C-alpha cells in the first residue's frame, strides 16, 4: 500500500468531487484527506491504495474534463510517482505544456476521444483551444471540426436522397449542429446565440470549430464537393450572436 498526494488543477468544478471520488474508488484508492483552494483552483487529495491501481487512476485523471492537469507525490518517498506515458498524452493538457503548439500526433489522439464524447465535445475542445498558441487555433480547430462533421454525417445522415442546398441546411446541417449546441437557421445562415468559443472579446471571429464542423457536414452532404463556411458575425466582436454562411 502507498500513500500519495495528488495535486489536481481544476478545469471544471461542477461534479468534480463526485468524479474524483469515483476515479479513486474504481482504482482501489481511498481518500485520507482533501483540501480545495478556491483561489488557485487546485484540489489537494491525500490518498491511500495499491500501486497496481496507479495506471488506471492516472489514465482516468488524464482523460477527465474536470481536471486540467495533475501532479502526484508519494508521501513516504522523496521522488514523485511518474504517471505512465499513455496517461500523460491522453488528455489535451498532457499533450504539451500550455501554449506550445499541439503536435499533429496529439491532435489525432484527441479525435477518437471527441468521437467517443460526442455530442458532449465542447469541454474537451475548449481545453484544447486554451492550451494551443493563438497562431494555431484557427486552422487546427477548423480541421478538427471538419473531421467531426464528416464523421457525424456518415454516421447519422448519409441515408437518403440528394438534397437541394436549402434542404441540406435544414434537414442535415442544422440537426447536426443542434446535437452539439443550440442553433437556428435564419434564411441560409446558421445562428448560434451561445457559442462558448466567443466568450472572450476579440477583433476577429473565434468560432473556428463550428465553421469546420459545418464544412465537414455540408461537404459530405454535397457528395464530397467542398463547401466553405465563413463566420460572418461573432459575439467576440461585439455582435449579439454568431452567424455562419456556407458557399461553394
Amino acid at each position, binding site marked *: 500500500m502507498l500513500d500519495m498526494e495528488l495535486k489536481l488543477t481544476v478545469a471544471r468544478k461542477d461534479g468534480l468531487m463526485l468524479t474524483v471520488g469515483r476515479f479513486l474508488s474504481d482504482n482501489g484508492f481511498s481518500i485520507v484527506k482533501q483540501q480545495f483552494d478556491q483561489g488557485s483552483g487546485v484540489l489537494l487529495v491525500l490518498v491511500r491504495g495499491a500501486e497496481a491501481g496507479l495506471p488506471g487512476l492516472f489514465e482516468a485523471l488524464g482523460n477527465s474534463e474536470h481536471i486540467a492537469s495533475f501532479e502526484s507525490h508519494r508521501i513516504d518517498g522523496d521522488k514523485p510517482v511518474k504517471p505512465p506515458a499513455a496517461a500523460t498524452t491522453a488528455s489535451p493538457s498532457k499533450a504539451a505544456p500550455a501554449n506550445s503548439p499541439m503536435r499533429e500526433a496529439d491532435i489525432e489522439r484527441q479525435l477518437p476521444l471527441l468521437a467517443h464524447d460526442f455530442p458532449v465535445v465542447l469541454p474537451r475542445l475548449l481545453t484544447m483551444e486554451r492550451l494551443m498558441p493563438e497562431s494555431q487555433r484557427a486552422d487546427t480547430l477548423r480541421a478538427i471540426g471538419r473531421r*467531426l462533421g464528416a*464523421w457525424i454525417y456518415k454516421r447519422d445522415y448519409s441515408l*437518403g*436522397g440528394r438534397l*437541394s442546398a436549402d*434542404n441540406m441546411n435544414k434537414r442535415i446541417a442544422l440537426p447536426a449542429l443542434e446535437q452539439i449546441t443550440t442553433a437556428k437557421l435564419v434564411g441560409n445562415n446558421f445562428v448560434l446565440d451561445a457559442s462558448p468559443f466567443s466568450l472572450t472579446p476579440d477583433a476577429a471571429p473565434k468560432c473556428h470549430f463550428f465553421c469546420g464542423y459545418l464544412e465537414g457536414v455540408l461537404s459530405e452532404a454535397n457528395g464530397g464537393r467542398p463547401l466553405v463556411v465563413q463566420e460572418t458575425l461573432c459575439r467576440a466582436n461585439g455582435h449579439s450572436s454568431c452567424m455562419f454562411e456556407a458557399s461553394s
Partner: protein
Amino acid sequence: MHGVQCQHDLILMILSFAVSVLSSLTALQLAMAIPSARTSNDRWIASALAGFAMGGGAIWSMHFLAMLACKMSIPVTYDAGLTALSIIVAVTSCSIGLAVAGAGPLSAQRLMTAAGLMGLGVAGMHYIGMAAMIMPADTAYNMTMVLASLVVAFVASGAALWLAFNMRGPLQMLGSAVVMGIAVSGMHYIGMAAASFEPTEAAVREATSFTFGGEQLGLLIFGLTVGLLAILFTTNWARQRQRASLTI
C-alpha cells in the same frame, strides 16, 4: 340474380397491410443505395432490387393476401399468366419510379414523375390481378371509384417518396413505409369497392396457362414475405455494423 358479395376476413386484411408496410420498409432501405450509387450499373441494380421488394412484396403480395381475405360464395382461381404479368408490371414500374426519385434532388417534377410511375405500378398490378380472376361471375367497375383509387395510389406514393428521399432521421423510413402501405392498401380496397361481381351461367373462361388456387397463392406470398424480411434484417444488420465501425 343478386351480385356476389365479398366478405373480408379482418385478420387477413390486417396481415395484408402489415406485409405491405414491412415490404415497403425493405424496398426503401434498398432504395437508399440508389442516390449513393457510383456507376449507372450500380444504380440500376439498386433500383431493380428495391423495385422487386416494392412491386413484388408491398404491392403484389398485399394484393393477393387481400384477395385471399375476400371470401366469396363462388369458386375463384387465378390465371398464372396474368398473375405473372401483374408482378412484372408492379416490379418494372416501381424500379423505374425509384430510379427516377433517387437520381437527383427531389424537385416537384421529379417527384410527380416518380409518383406517377409508382402509382401506375400499384394500380396496374391491381387491375391486372383482378382480370386474372377465373370465376363464374362478370366483373363491372364504378369508374368514379376507379378514378378515386388511382388518385389515392398517386398521392400516397408521392408522399411516401417525399418522406423517403427528402427527410433524415429515424421516422423517415418508418413513416415512409407506413404511408406507402396506406397507398397500396387504400388503392386496393377502394378498387375492390369499385368492383361488383354478377354471377353468370356462361362457361368459365379458359386460363391462359395453369391456375393458382388459394393455397398455392398463400405459399407463394409466404415465401416472398419471408425472403423480403430476411433481406430487411440483413440490410439493417450490415448498416449497423458499418455505422459502428466508422472511424473519425
